[in-house]
Structures are given as structure tokens and as C-alpha cells.
């Protein structure tokens, strides 16, 4: 029996066991990454031919069997931005409170407990809540506003988590230096801590934005509809949305087969939008990080 010094090339039975297992570990990683590329590639191949300028800029025609998906794109962007408009300030403020002011105690434990559980609520339950609370009790009806608020509360835990992570990476010496110069705590947070944490906060928020844009279940009963003849003009209008459009065309339409190219095209646009936001987040992160370095 010979032993090689190279750590990956053990011989004998122990070496064989190791190579088999390591091959399995590699295989698992490979399959998951391949799955990602399979989905993306499939949608690109199938959907690319459907995409053209008219598809992106026109209204749907002939009960959605022809024409473009402009109202879906607009609707999705409005829903996601609306969600962010609620979740960003609330989430960042909560993260600041939890990280800069109160770090322990019963009250904080309760807030953290609520956030953890909020993160675990199934998306369809958010939809039910949105229907019962925003649409019915607050009398907002099925509208852009109801949908955006529902997505907003769903994004809240994500933004709080990302912001807290970012605030934790700000060195304590920044806080001490600022306070040592006679800045108040609020000035320290507002002028030193938050600016330093901004790359992380923005990255997390853009990722949350992407997630909100791709969600379907929360907006099914609260904001999105099959079809609107016009683009939304106010926050109380119903909207069309990319994810819901895919679902409707693929499952509930009367011409499921005929509209396949539209379905692929819509799915590709949604993927591009979501992955584009991810890319955006990465760029924002590196840009802002480098800005104050050498």
C-alpha cells in the first residue's frame, strides 16, 4: 500500500471512500448550478424570439393572445417600488433602532421575535392578510396600493436583516470618533454610521425589490388582475403584473397553446428584470465601497 502526500489522492480504501464522497459533493454543487443555468437558458432560447420593441411597449391585444406586455412591466415596477417605499424607511429605521439604540431587553426580544416570524409567513398568507386588511378594512380595494403594501410588509424582514448586517460592519471607532467630537448620537448615526453602512443597506434593499417584483401569491388577491384596458393612473387602480401574467397565460387562459411564445417572452422579461436588479445591487455595492477608498 502506498501513500501519496497529496491530500486529495489518498490510496487504499479510505482514499476510495473519500473520492466517492467528494465526487458526490462536487456533483451536488454542479447540479444546483446547472439547474440555474438550465432554467435561464431554456427561457432565453424559448423567449428570445418573442421579445421585440413592440412586445415591450404595446398593450395586449385580442384578449391577450397578441400584442405586448407594457402594462405588466409598468405594473410590476410600480408594485415593487411601492413596496420599497413602505419597507425601506420602516426597515432601515427598525434596523437602526435595534442596532444603535436598544440591543437587549424584553422589548427588543419581542421586536426580533416578530421579525423572525414575519420572515416565515407563507407568501399566500400575506395575500390573505392583504385582502382582509388593506382591501377590505382599509377599503383600498384591489389596487396598486393594496398590492404594494402587501409586498412591502413581506419585504420588511429582508430589509431589516440586510440593514442590520450592514450597520454591524460599521467599525465602532467611527461612532467613538464622532461622539468624541461633540456630535450627538443622532448626528453620529445620520452623518457617519448610516453613510458607512449605505452600500450594504442599498444592496439588501435592491435584492428585496427584486424579490418583491417576482412574487405572485401576495398580489393575486390584492393588486393584480388578468387584464386592464389602460395603464394605471392612480394608486387606487388595479394593475397587471409580470408574474401574475405568466401564471394566467400559462394556466387559466383559453388559448394556452397559442400564447406560449408570449408566456416565454414574459418569463424572460421577468427573469431579466430580477437578475438585472441583482446585478444592479452588486454594482452599487462595489461602487459605493470604492468611493471613499483610495
Amino acid at each position: 500500500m502506498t501513500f501519496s502526500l497529496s491530500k486529495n489522492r489518498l490510496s487504499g480504501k479510505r482514499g476510495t471512500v473519500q473520492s466517492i464522497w467528494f465526487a458526490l459533493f462536487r456533483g451536488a454543487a454542479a447540479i444546483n448550478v446547472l439547474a440555474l443555468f438550465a432554467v435561464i437558458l431554456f427561457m432565453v432560447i424559448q423567449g428570445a424570439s418573442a421579445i421585440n420593441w413592440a412586445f415591450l411597449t404595446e398593450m395586449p391585444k385580442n384578449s391577450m393572445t397578441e400584442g405586448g406586455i407594457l402594462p405588466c412591466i409598468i405594473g410590476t415596477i410600480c408594485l415593487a417600488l411601492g413596496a420599497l417605499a413602505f419597507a425601506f424607511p420602516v426597515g432601515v429605521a427598525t434596523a437602526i433602532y435595534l442596532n444603535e439604540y436598544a440591543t437587549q431587553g424584553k422589548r427588543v426580544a419581542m421586536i426580533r421575535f416578530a421579525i423572525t416570524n414575519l420572515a416565515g409567513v407563507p407568501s399566500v398568507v400575506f395575500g390573505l392578510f392583504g385582502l382582509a386588511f388593506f382591501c377590505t378594512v382599509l377599503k383600498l380595494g384591489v389596487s396598486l396600493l393594496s398590492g404594494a403594501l402587501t409586498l412591502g410588509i413581506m419585504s420588511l424582514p429582508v430589509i431589516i436583516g440586510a440593514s442590520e448586517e450592514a450597520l454591524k460592519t460599521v467599525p465602532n471607532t467611527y461612532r467613538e470618533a464622532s461622539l468624541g467630537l461633540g456630535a450627538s448620537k443622532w448626528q453620529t448615526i445620520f452623518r457617519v454610521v448610516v453613510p458607512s453602512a449605505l452600500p450594504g443597506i442599498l444592496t439588501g434593499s435592491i435584492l428585496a425589490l427584486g424579490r418583491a417584483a417576482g412574487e405572485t401569491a401576495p398580489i393575486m388577491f390584492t393588486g393584480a388582475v388578468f387584464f386592464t384596458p389602460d395603464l394605471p393612473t392612480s394608486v387606487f387602480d388595479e394593475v397587471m403584473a409580470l408574474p401574475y401574467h405568466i401564471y394566467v397565460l400559462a394556466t387559466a387562459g383559453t388559448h394556452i397553446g397559442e400564447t406560449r411564445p408570449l408566456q416565454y417572452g414574459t418569463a424572460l422579461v421577468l427573469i431579466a428584470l430580477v437578475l438585472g436588479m441583482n446585478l444592479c445591487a452588486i454594482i452599487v455595492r462595489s461602487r459605493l465601497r470604492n468611493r471613499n477608498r483610495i
Partner: protein
Amino acid sequence: MTYREHTKGEMIPEGSSRGDRGAAPTDTLTGRGTALGEWVAESSLLIISLISIVVLGLILLFLLMEGLPTFSFVSVKAFILGHLWYPTDEPPDFGILALIMGSISVTLISSLIAVPSGVMTAIYLSEIAPPKMAEILKPAIELLASLPSVVIGFFGMVAVAPLMQRIFDIPTGLNLFTASIMLAFMSIPTICTISEDALRSVPVTYREASMALGATPFETISKVTVPAALSGITTAIILGMSRAIGETMVVLMVAGGAAIIPGSLFDPIRPMPASIASEMGEAPFRGDHYHALFATGITLFLFTILFNILAMSASRRFRLKG
């Protein structure tokens, strides 16, 4: 109060005390009024932070408000254990056992795929992959997490289901098995990222000690590193399952939608989220069906809360160990 311009040395005559700087020396130490501003800032942040608690409370309240009326026309026992879900029949049947079993079966089978795959990928990323490789693969896993569920559901419908139908020669590719596979890809990123964090938090000294005793890298992984990270990995698995049971679009589009208790891997099923999502649109507002769907939502929510509590207690042990 405005800042006083003064130049050191000129303003203070020789021998005079620093105490007579300005007219009222002590009021700058007590009277700037920052305390009020600080109090306002902290209080507003606290109030905003309470929104999370309020929202969670409202979710519970409204689920109960809209769901509990169900039990005026069907008993809790008949609702949970009833086999028949025919909410629009005359008279309707509101038994969600088939939906519960659909959810449980699809969650379990998807976990059978996702847990080994996710944990093994995590082991590869944290223990085996060269750093450069890990740097490329990790964003790919995160990207997988960011794919919208409707896209995964759609992919399952148009690509995977027909394939399954052909391979296994079954009447429909939209069934428990296909749904489990697609669902697995939704929970793999969760399981993988949290497991990887747990593995990375195992001190390097453990690995060194094991290797120094003559253990192979694989023996070190299986006997030292993974056991040390086990509660973190457990948390990851539970959270992944929680994600799977609550996931809506994939099961709505791929599971086949039949409200039957599955007897085989290739039976179509109708998990709870799918039922809620597909029927809520047509359920008459505040009718029996509407309330029964909210009650189904409560049941689903209870499942995820259970998973959350399990995950929290697992991670608490994890932290104690770490």
C-alpha cells in the same frame, strides 16, 4: 444656540481662569437642548420598530377573524380530518385533510431531494472548493434563490412535466413527484447558505486537530466538521422545509391540483397554498368558502410557526455550542 467664534489665547487674559469662557460657562454644559432632540429621535425609531409587531399581530388577528367563522358551519374535527374538499358543491364539503396531506407529502419528498443536495453543496463550498471556485458558485446559488417562484413553476410546467410524463409513461406530468423536484430547487438555496454559514463557523483548529491525528479530509468532514455544525445544519433544514410548505406558485402550477390524499408518487395533489391561491379569486366574499380558505391559511400558518419554533430552538443550541 449658535456657536461662539473665539480664538484661543486672545480671548483669555493671562492668569484668568478657563471658567469665564463666555458669559455663562455652565449653561453650555447643561442647556444645549440636545437631550430633547435625542429623545424624539429614539422614540420615533422605537415607534417605527413596533410596526413589525403590529403587522404580525394584525396578520394573526385578521386570519382568525376571517377564518374562525368557518367553525360555525363545520366542526374543527370535520374540517381537519375531513377527506372531502368540495367547497362549491351543494351541499359543500369542507374537509382539508387531503390538502394537509398534499402539503406534508410534497414537503417531505422535496426535502428528501433538497436536504442531501443542499447540505452536500454547502460542504463542497465550505470545505472542498478552491476559494476562487466558491466565489463563483456562491453568487450562482444566491441567484437561484432570486429566481421568481412563478418562473420555476412555469419551467416545471412546460419543461419538466412533459419530460416526466414521457419517461415514466404516466397520464400527467403534473404530480407530487414533479412538484417535489421543483420545490426542492426553491428550498436548496436556503438550506445551502445557512448550512454553509454553520460549517464555516466551525473553528479551523478542530479540522487541524483531526488532520493531525491522521484523519483523511473526508473523515474530518464527516466525523468532526459536520457534527460540530449539526444544529446549524438542522436549522437550515427546518427553514428550508418551512419555505417549501409555504411556497405557493410552484405547487399551484405543477402539483396537478387534485384534492386527493396521494397514494403514489405520481398522483396529482393539491397542497394548502395551491388551494387558497386558486380558489380565493372565485370564492364569494365572506361566504362559507371564503372563510374556509382563511381557516386553511390559519392551518398553513400554524405549520410554518411550528417550523419556526423548531428552527429557533435548534439555532439557540447552535449558538450555545458555537
